[in-house]
């Protein structure tokens, strides 16, 4: 039996008078990988950023409707708690350049002023880096700056940083669009392992990626959620014409 972790009803988001997300209704099941795809400017990234309330950091950004995490309204919670429970990985790898690899992993604890004993910190760092398959590559250089790593390693470091906070949901905003194919496939493999403990929502405009990594796919077009279904069904037997056109490459 699938249990729903994120649920939105009639969800809208805009920048000033620009209405970018329209009436989105979606139920996201726990411990699944959900791909959100669609052409540029369709509102998929905006919708993603609404889930952990990053959208409202932009001046002029507003949203309305219902967005629930475990039946608790996200917009009635404190944004800090929301972001602790819903981690995020960005398009460009963004490790803190002034921090070492070790400090980058536990940056979330440091930023929030949570003091941990050294042994506990070591455990978290090793555990998080192991989860993203980076431990063996960096275990001898934990005190080097994170910015010395390659792009793919940096992105895995950012995933480790998000995983270290033990969130329930991980949001990925086009996590591989700045990476080379080999790093991309390493990150994609991670998704399968991470979904055992977390729910993953991945925005991508790469259809093959959506097909490879996700259990369910949501297709956004012009701010609307056009279709949301099992990935297999979506790619073999789409119900909506617009989805059909998109996955066959008639527009992009």
């Amino acid at each position, binding site marked *: 039996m699938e249990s729903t972790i994120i649920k939105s009803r009639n969800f809208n988001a805009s920048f000033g008078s620009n209405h970018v997300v329209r009436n989105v209704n979606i139920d996201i099941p726990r411990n699944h990988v959900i791909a959100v795809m669609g052409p540029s400017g369709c509102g998929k990234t905006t919708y993603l950023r609404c889930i952990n309330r990053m959208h409202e950091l932009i001046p002029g950004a507003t949203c309305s409707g219902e967005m629930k995490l475990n039946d608790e309204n996200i917009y009635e919670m404190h944004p800090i708690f929301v972001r602790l429970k819903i981690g995020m990985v960005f398009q460009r790898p*963004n490790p803190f350049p002034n921090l070492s690899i070790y400090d980058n992993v536990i940056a979330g604890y*440091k*930023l*929030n002023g949570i003091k941990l004993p050294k042994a506990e910190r070591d455990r978290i760092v090793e555990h998080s880096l192991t989860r993203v398959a980076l431990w063996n590559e960096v275990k001898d250089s934990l005190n080097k700056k994170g910015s010395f790593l390659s792009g793919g390693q940096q992105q895995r470091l950012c995933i480790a940083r998000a995983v270290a906070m033990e969130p329930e949901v991980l949001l990925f905003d086009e996590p591989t669009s700045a990476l080379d194919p080999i790093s991309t496939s390493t990150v994609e493999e991670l998704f399968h392992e991470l979904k055992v403990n977390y729910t993953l929502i991945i925005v991508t405009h790469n259809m093959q990626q959506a097909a490879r990594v996700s259990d369910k796919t949501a297709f956004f077009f012009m701010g609307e959620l056009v279709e949301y279904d099992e990935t297999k069904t979506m790619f073999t037997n789409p119900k909506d014409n617009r989805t059909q056109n998109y996955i066959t490459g008639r527009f992009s």
Partner: protein
Amino acid sequence: MDTSVENGMVTRSDLPLRVINSTPEAISKAKKRAKRSFRQIRTENVFKKTLMLMGLIMVILVLGILLTLIVQSLPSVKALGPKYLWSKVWDPVQDIYGAWPFLLGTLLSSFLALFISIPFSIAIAIFLGEYHPKGWLPNFLKNTVELIAAVPSVIYGFWGLAVLVPIVRSFESAIGVDPIGVGIFSSSLILAVMIIPYAASLGRSMINMVPSHLKEAAYGLGATRWEVIRSVVLPYTKSGLFAGILLSLGRALGETMAVTMVIGNTSLIPKNIFAPGNTMASVIANEFTEADKPVYLSALIELGLVLFLVTVVINLIGKKIIDRFTNE
């Protein structure tokens, strides 16, 4: 650049001419085009040389000023030697010249001013750079702060004498030091106000430059605004903020008019920060017209040379840090 000319004539091989057919019209058209191109290049060269000349004049001017200072201070350097810098007595009547009281006065008032201004300038930089980059209130604040730099310094001196000095005087009598009012402390207060815009506006632009993806990384981990500023913005901009502070120090060291009006103008070494004193710049301004002996005049000019060098060094260090910061 394509230099091949098919079926036609080559007018100048270094021009991007391409004559496809060799009809007379086509060739004359190509010639016209070539002429225009030559004219463009000539104009461009003249323009470039004019710009260079203007720049060169400025360099020559600065070097000329430095040379003048060096040449004119030679008599004093010869007569007084290096101990001029640390001699404690300045008594032109007896022909005793020691720069130490003024060096001390300059450094004391400038650093004290810097110390007072830092919290204000950094707070303004953070407020304008991170909290409220847009809107009427931040715009108003930004323009007001920049206006501080535009007010003539004699106005500050006047305001200092009329308003600040009486306040300082009552403050001094309250804490039990000689209630003179004018002195190092008053001039530091005035200087602090005058130098705030330099560090504030440079700091603001540095804070504006912090990449948003780094800030988002911190927000995404559940950081508050203050935590983002403390852990991302400030570490990222610390060298830029430091450079801004250095530049405002350079400004404080050289400020003359406002300081002269409120510092008290004595050639004695100040006993404490409330005592009257003098800075290098204000001694020069005060005594230049009454310097009746060649050595006296030369000693004042040497003071100017020292001031010039100190400010140049501080400015160079500040610029160096900014360059390193913006190239990262």
